[in-house]
């Protein structure tokens, strides 16, 4: 079954204390009914600072910095706890402060309705300019601003809505029509907030998923606002309005509304559109809601809590054609609350959970995780709504008991094992099932979770059109395509086949041999293009950046320090496949750190090639023991590794020469120079050393934050090795090397990678370098290379140039370390390096 897949997610929070006071309905209602109430007087004392809001553990979870498990380990309540190292940006998105968001609202205003204070723009604009995702096109829309006097008059006399940042009036949103209430300043404000937060979330989704904005075909907005005028009050369309600002030039879209169940409905629609072949890439997105800010504020204030509902929420997901990697949305398992279902909680859970599962021959215990409404209990409990996700898990379990699928005594265990703690803001549609999608995707890609059921529920009766409740659920599962690939038709494989560029300008075996290798890969169904000429390596880089090729096989590439290649070989003794980590490049300048990083790179390469849980062995070379200790601690800390056992009688993780010949480990870890040596020995021994005739070559460069897929072969690589390298390159695309790498590095980091490495350096005899670090001068384009510097001194050499005001970067060429420099500076740099003794 060719299911569509969840290719990425985006999650954003915007801290907006000013809007809590002036736009949350609890507060506006109170102000109109009881302008002098104690609540309104008390409220300002309960507003959190941006820093407190950022450090609030559930917020760090929402943007992916703190796992749900880590959050669950923190004792509730959470409002008085802080995350130790909170970060504004996370793997899923960010927590944006109010001042930047005010400017973003102005950017998103297409009708000259938002005006900000001149001085405010001057201080806030540079912040947005420094934002990694705000595009130049968006920045160009920022207006100069108006005088404070004009702003005050608009708010006081012209019905404009105030834009408040840090207690100060910094702008206004004016009405778009004098009479039409649907275009009142209040409605326009609310809608622009929704649009702007939606745009920001889409930008994060684009980055997260790596999809080209031009490849997005359709956007479905699933928020709870309505835009239109008096003749078509809910005319729409937020989706297209947001797509325009986000630069999705080839997309159109529409809005789907179903109260809080909107996102789940929209994802089912998106998955159906993709599966039907109507579109290839569909984004589902929803922005935040001002009305719900401080919704339970009275209870929070009464109980002495901070106003916890001080954030707008944004959510986005990309649904795409099946890539054989990402989790699938299985449309055969959809739960629906129908008109005839009725409203008893039992009937609701039956319709959404047990009916679709029973139809698919499954029991409630066959689903790893359920994601119903994921409201943060810290917010709902003090307001008397209890722990919403927990109540849902209890309902599912209780129904399981009624159906005889579970013993009553097993109820608490079910809730614990199949449930999740809530962490989402009470922004209506935002918490409804979808907050878990980001974590679910990561977990399924890493093989920790096999499936999940996402449940959206909506209170339709609030709209007074029906007494009906609503809900829809869908089923997310680990990609099944890999296992079933033998059954996939040949044409399906070819359409999904990535294009590989081949650039080997100086093969010792001649151009003809390279050409025959490309042809032979083509016969095996792989798409390879030969890049020829003296400048072919430069051309290769351009083609990679332009997306003309998905990956490249090259004879040379200057990888930056931090990146090294993982070779792949069939071992001579048993013909067993083995990954040599690593074979060229430099993972780190410290030997032990490099070996630890090589191990992670090796695991990434093996997983990319379909080995789900590879075994790891460490070659018995200098530094092997220290590397083993660090890897074992990492494994104990949660970066779980499967260690190989030496084939020698005494076993152990350290691998001897015999093990290299036999392939006792899937991933064989060693320092790069040894790896390079072994690669050549193991691939050239059958020819007496002249031609490297077996194996897959030196493999892809892998490193933290390295986003290219470039695989290395040698000038002595024969046709078979080059053809194999093309296959290996195609696997790095189809196996999604970059996503796997991101997941693995994130897991290793979480298990304390950096701390362990730092401790190991402290223990080593030389100790860490004590010299003060030089500051890099402004970045320049570096096109020239300086060779001949000792690898251990490379970073020092770079800093030596920095301290003289010359920008330089370290890198790794095919013959050894290189220092990259601007062509205008090369002579001056060489002279300095010579004087300081780094080159001769």
């Amino acid at each position, binding site marked *: 079954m060719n299911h569509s897949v969840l290719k990425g997610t985006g999650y954003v929070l915007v801290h907006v204390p000013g809007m809590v006071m002036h736009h949350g309905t609890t507060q506006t209602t109170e102000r109109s009914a009881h302008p002098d109430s104690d609540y309104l007087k008390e409220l300002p004392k309960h507003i959190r600072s941006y820093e407190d809001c950022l450090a609030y553990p559930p917020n760090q979870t929402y943007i992916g910095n703190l796992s749900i498990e880590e959050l669950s380990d923190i004792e509730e309540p959470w409002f008085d706890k802080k995350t130790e190292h909170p970060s504004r940006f996370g793997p899923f998105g960010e927590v944006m402060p109010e001042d930047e968001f005010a400017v973003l609202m102005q950017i998103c205003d297409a009708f000259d309705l938002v005006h900000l204070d001149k001085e405010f723009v001057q201080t806030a604009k540079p912040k947005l300019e420094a934002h990694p995702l705000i595009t130049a096109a968006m920045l160009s829309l920022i207006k100069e601003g108006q005088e404070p006097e004009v702003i005050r008059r608009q708010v006081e006399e012209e019905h404009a809505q105030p834009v408040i940042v840090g207690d100060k009036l910094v702008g206004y949103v004016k009405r778009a029509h004098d009479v039409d209430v649907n275009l009142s300043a209040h409605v326009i404000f609310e809608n622009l907030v929704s649009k702007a937060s939606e745009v920001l979330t889409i930008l994060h989704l684009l980055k997260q998923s790596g999809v080209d904005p031009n490849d997005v075909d359709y956007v479905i907005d699933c928020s709870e606002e309505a835009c239109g005028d008096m003749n078509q009050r809910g005319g729409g369309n937020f989706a297209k309005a947001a797509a325009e600002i986000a630069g999705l030039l080839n997309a159109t879209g529409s809005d789907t509304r179903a109260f809080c169940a909107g996102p789940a409905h929209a994802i089912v629609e998106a998955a159906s559109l993709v599966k039907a072949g109507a579109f290839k890439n569909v984004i589902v997105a929803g922005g935040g809601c001002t009305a719900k800010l401080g919704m339970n504020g009275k209870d929070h204030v009464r109980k002495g809590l901070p106003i916890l509902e001080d954030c707008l929420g944004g959510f986005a997901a990309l649904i795409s054609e099946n890539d054989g990697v990402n989790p699938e949305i299985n449309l055969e398992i959809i739960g629906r609350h129908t008109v005839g279902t009725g*409203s008893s909680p039992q009937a609701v859970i039956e319709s959404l959970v047990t009916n679709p599962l029973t139809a698919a021959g499954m029991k409630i215990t066959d689903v790893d995780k359920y994601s119903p409404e994921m409201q943060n209990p810290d917010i*709902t409990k003090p*307001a008397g709504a209890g722990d919403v996700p927990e109540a849902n898990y209890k309902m599912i379990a209780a129904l399981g008991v009624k159906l005889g699928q579970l013993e009553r005594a097993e109820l608490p265990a079910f809730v614990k094992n199949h449930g999740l703690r809530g962490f989402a803001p009470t922004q209506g549609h935002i918490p409804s099932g979808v907050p878990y999608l980001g974590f679910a995707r990561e977990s399924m890609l890493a093989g920790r979770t096999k499936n999940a059921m996402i449940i959206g529920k909506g209170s339709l009766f609030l709209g007074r059109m029906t*007494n009906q*409740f609503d809900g829809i659920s869908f089923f997310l599962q680990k990609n099944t395509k890999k296992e079933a690939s033998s059954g996939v038709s040949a044409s399906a494989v070819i359409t999904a086949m990535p294009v590989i560029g081949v650039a080997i300008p100086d093969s010792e075996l001649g151009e003809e041999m390279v050409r025959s290798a490309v042809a032979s890969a083509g016969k095996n169904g792989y798409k390879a293009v030969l890049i020829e000429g003296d400048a072919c390596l430069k051309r290769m880089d351009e083609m990679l950046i332009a997306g003309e090729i998905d990956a490249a096989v090259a004879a040379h590439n200057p990888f930056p320090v931090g990146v090294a290649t993982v070779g792949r070989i069939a071992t001579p003794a048993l013909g067993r496949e083995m990954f040599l980590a690593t074979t060229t490049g430099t993972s780190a300048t410290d030997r032990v750190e490099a070996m630890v990083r090589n191990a992670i790179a090796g695991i990434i390469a093996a997983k990319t090639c379909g080995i789900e849980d590879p075994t790891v062995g460490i070659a018995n070379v200098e530094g092997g023991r220290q590397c083993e200790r660090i890897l074992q601690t990492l494994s104990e800390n949660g970066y779980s590794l499967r260690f190989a056992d030496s084939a020698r009688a005494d076993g152990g993780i350290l691998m001897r020469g015999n093990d290299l010949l036999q392939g006792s480990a899937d991933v064989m870890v060693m320092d790069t120079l040894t790896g390079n040596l072994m690669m050549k020995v193991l691939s050239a021994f059958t020819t007496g050393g002249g031609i490297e005739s077996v194996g897959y070559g030196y493999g892809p460069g892998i490193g933290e934050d390295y986003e290219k897929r470039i695989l290395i072969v040698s000038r002595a690589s024969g046709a078979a090795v080059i053809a194999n390298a093309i296959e290996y390159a195609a696997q790095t695309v189809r196996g999604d090397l970059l996503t796997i790498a991101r997941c693995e590095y994130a897991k290793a980091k979480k298990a304390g990678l950096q701390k362990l490495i730092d401790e190991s350096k402290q223990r080593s005899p030389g100790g860490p370098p004590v010299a003060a670090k030089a500051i890099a001068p402004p970045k320049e384009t570096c096109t020239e290379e300086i060779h001949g510097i000792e690898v251990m001194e490379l970073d020092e050499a770079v800093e030596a140039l920095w301290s003289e005001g010359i920008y330089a970067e370290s890198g790794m060429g095919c013959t050894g370390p290189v220092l990259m420099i601007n062509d205008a500076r090369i002579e001056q740099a060489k002279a300095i390096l010579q004087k300081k003794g780094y080159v001769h």
Partner: protein
Amino acid sequence: MAILEGKKAIIIGDRDGIPGPAIEACLESAGAEVVFSSTECFV
């Protein structure tokens, strides 16, 4: 003495507890007359 029979019943249901219509069905079976039924939503 019956509590519900013959009474005018007001129902304040809860979306995350027991919703209004479910309570309605119960009370009608006990002979109460439901004069108002509503479901609150805290989230």
